[in-house]
């Protein structure tokens, strides 16, 4: 074997070990010298793997990863891209923390409080979107708690200070907020673009034009490029749920996020008070006559069960509590929950701002008669494979029972899932509510790519693209009276996430230097063809965004080390030198 086939340290150690052994016969002093040499690791080239999904799943993410790789290479880092399927990526990031850097979209966020579970150090050991970055910073912790609590008379000031800390710490490098592009047909359904209603609830608000061809049953057809909903309908299976998941149509929350507001949904009334012992409380009254898809009544007991269950899916039967990794940020706000009567529940939130506490009401309600059997530990063929994982987190829930406006009908894994209107739902049949649902069936198909999805809309097979499509497929959208394209501002920002548990990403200065390799302005104008807004903070586009950290052509925290998408080699390398890293004669970054 040639010595260049093995890693330099290994060969050097072996070699010196051999030399040392030979020398030991000759002189003890020489042996000591050899030992002190072989016990020192010399710095090696910094090597980074960027994980992201293939272009079929998210072309923009790959393009961002490619630019980052190119700029890292320029900066002397040995960077490579590893493509993994979307469920694998989420497993690697959210469950196993096995990544250096990833590129992707963050779940949609409206209130700054999402930063608390995302970055507070007490969530480092948890799974899901609870601090996957492994950040632990006492100063940041304090500010994150501050913005939640009512002791802060001015929440905006606390949010600004937390935002500033996040910008300096750079747990993830912000890229941009994309526009969600949807291509629809208007001949069978119209009024697609509903402001203020989040996906996928906006499907419920479409109208049936008077001249629409009659059909039985009336079916709304949507095409997705993500097949996860056809394989798994578990609302708390973190790796199967992308942003805007259709499980939102199957499971109702007490209140829904609508635009920047949170409005009662299953609840008819939410009354907020402060009490001495519970702090901020919300007394929630359910609508009358609510039922689950299987005909059982939905009562206050189910509500109480849901919050206890999400907090500990083993319900106290395991050796330790097993939190649901999804909705954990929201359920962690709840300090107490108690049933007052069949339709009334009282929540205690302690020292929490009301607007933040309201977030806790947006988690999906689960029927206790289905989920309480799922508290056991997982096993495969009777063999316990891992402790601390309950069935609730991993079962596929292929025949979901919720209380949402749509109920499960049938599925073909990987190809199609069909839902039908739940006629017992309080929205159905009009009444004082905002909309009636003009279709009886909701048919979801899967296409292999954005281009293929759009082709199904243009040829009349389906009515709409259900997942955002990349701007470049718009060229293939035929000009026709019955085809429309519309844009909405997404709240899911593209970012580069760092794993601070792995060197050198534990070093804040290194993270800042890498973040300076990201040319967000250029990415927004080229990768997204202008259908994106570069952003320096995750609060951009909300009322909470601090004016001093708005995007002004560059990132106020980590300005791009170059201009117009062209990296300035010496500027990029100086950033790493200032962070304490060195370059060898071949221009490789050593660390």
């Amino acid at each position: 074997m040639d010595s260049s086939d093995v890693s330099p340290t290994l060969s050097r150690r072996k070699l010196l070990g051999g030399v040392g052994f030979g020398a030991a016969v000759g002189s003890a002093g020489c042996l000591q010298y050899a030992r002190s040499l072989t016990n020192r690791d010399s710095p090696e080239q910094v090597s980074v793997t960027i994980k992201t999904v293939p272009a079929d799943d998210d072309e923009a993410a790959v393009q961002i990863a490619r630019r980052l790789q190119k700029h890292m290479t320029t900066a002397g880092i040995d960077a490579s891209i590893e493509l993994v399927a979307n469920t694998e990526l989420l497993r690697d990031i959210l469950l196993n923390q096995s990544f250096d850097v990833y590129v992707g979209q963050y779940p949609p966020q409206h209130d700054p409080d999402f930063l608390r579970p995302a970055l507070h150090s007490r969530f480092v050991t948890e799974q899901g979107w609870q601090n996957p970055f492994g950040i632990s910073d006492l100063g940041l912790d304090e500010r994150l708690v501050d913005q939640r609590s009512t002791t802060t008379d001015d929440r905006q000031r606390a949010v600004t200070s937390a935002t500033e800390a996040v910008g300096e710490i750079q747990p993830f490098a912000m890229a941009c907020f994309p526009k969600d592009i949807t291509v629809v047909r208007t001949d069978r359904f119209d009024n697609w673009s509903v402001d203020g209603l989040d996906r996928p609830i906006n499907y419920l608000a479409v109208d049936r034009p008077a001249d629409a061809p009659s059909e039985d049953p009336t079916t709304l057809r949507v095409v997705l490029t993500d097949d996860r909903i056809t394989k798994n309908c578990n609302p708390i299976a973190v790796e199967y749920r992308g942003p805007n998941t259709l499980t939102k149509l199957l499971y109702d929350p007490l209140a829904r996020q609508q635009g920047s507001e949170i409005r009662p949904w299953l609840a008819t009334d939410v009354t907020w008070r402060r009490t001495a012992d519970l702090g901020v409380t919300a007394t929630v009254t359910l609508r009358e006559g609510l039922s689950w898809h299987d005909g059982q009544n939905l009562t206050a007991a189910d509500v109480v069960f849901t919050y206890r269950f999400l907090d500990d899916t083993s319900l106290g039967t395991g050796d330790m509590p097993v939190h649901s990794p999804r909705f954990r940020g929201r359920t962690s706000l709840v300090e107490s929950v108690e049933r007052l009567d069949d339709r009334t529940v009282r929540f205690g939130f302690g020292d929490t701002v009301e607007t933040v506490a309201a977030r806790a009401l947006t988690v999906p309600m689960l029927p206790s008669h289905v989920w309480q059997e799922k508290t056991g530990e997982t096993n495969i063929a009777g063999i316990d494979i891992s402790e601390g994982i309950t069935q609730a987190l991993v079962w596929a829930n292929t025949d979901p029972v919720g209380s949402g406006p749509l109920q499960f009908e049938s599925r073909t894994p990987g190809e199609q899932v069909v839902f039908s209107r739940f006629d017992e739902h309080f929205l159905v049949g009009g009444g004082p509510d905002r909309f009636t649902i003009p279709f009886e069936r909701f048919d979801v198909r899967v296409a292999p790519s954005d281009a293929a999805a759009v082709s199904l809309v243009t040829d009349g097979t389906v009515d709409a693209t259900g997942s955002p499509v990349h701007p470049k497929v718009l060229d293939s959208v035929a000009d026709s009276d019955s085809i429309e394209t519309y844009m909405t501002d997404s709240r899911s920002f593209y970012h580069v996430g760092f794993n601070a548990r792995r060197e050198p990403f534990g070093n804040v200065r290194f993270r800042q230097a890498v973040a300076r390799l990201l040319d967000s302005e250029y990415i927004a104008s080229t990768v997204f063809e202008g259908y994106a807004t570069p952003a320096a903070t995750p609060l951009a586009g909300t009322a909470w965004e601090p004016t001093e950290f708005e995007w002004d052509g560059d990132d106020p925290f980590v300005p791009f080390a170059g201009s117009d998408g062209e990296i300035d080699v010496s500027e990029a390398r100086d950033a790493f030198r200032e962070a304490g890293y060195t370059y060898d004669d071949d221009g490789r970054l050593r660390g």
Partner: protein
Amino acid sequence: MTVPITLLGMVIAVTVVLVSVTTAVVIGWRRFTRLRTDYRSIARNAIPSLALLGGVLAINSVVREVGVEVSWLIGWNITGDIYAIEGNLVPAIQSLAHPWLTTYFSLIYVYGYVFVLVFPLVAYLVLDDMEWFRTAAIAYALNYAIGLCLYLVFIAYGPRNLLPDLTEPLLYTNWPSSQFLVSEVNANTNVFPSLHTSLSVTVIALAYRTRRVYPRWLPIATLVGGSVVISTMYLAIHWGTDVVAGAILGVGCVWLARRIVRR
């Protein structure tokens, strides 16, 4: 994913027409009429190897569904390694793109491929000696069987999935519905090796071995099969590395099939 019925119908129709025309040119109708008189003995001789091929294809379609999950469990993700080996070969090939070429290679990738696979089975079926038919059927089966095992072991995405900045998925941008057909046949993690290449090379190798029987088939097979090989890279579906591996697999399968039949 459901394959658009119209596209499936088109593939079948085009294949029937191409095979019929080629039959007239290459085989000659006189030889072909042997099917009418000797169909019983021909069927008896052909069924075992056809059953083997059918069995492998059936297993293939079942395993392909779960295969992707299995390969994420045990597989080795080599996309980055392949790119490190060959660099920007595919983008270089794509730099020669021209709308006519794109149309030609798109048609070749879908229709030409099916034609080049089906025709030898017909051609060797009407020979007095069934040896070549058995060789072809076994070689096809070996390609699928070995290819399937390699797909389980290796996870690799094609250039269009890793390099959207340098390549254009020409087939799918110009003919989106074809992607329903292709993705039905294979998952996007299975590009190493290229079965389009290995089966085309198999057909070319068999055409070379049978050039005395069907002298006109060799140039046709080489032209169409060779175009299929190039199309996989031109359309940014496969890496050059996949094509090389596919070619080795194709030649190897013919050699192995010959040995099995001879024995």
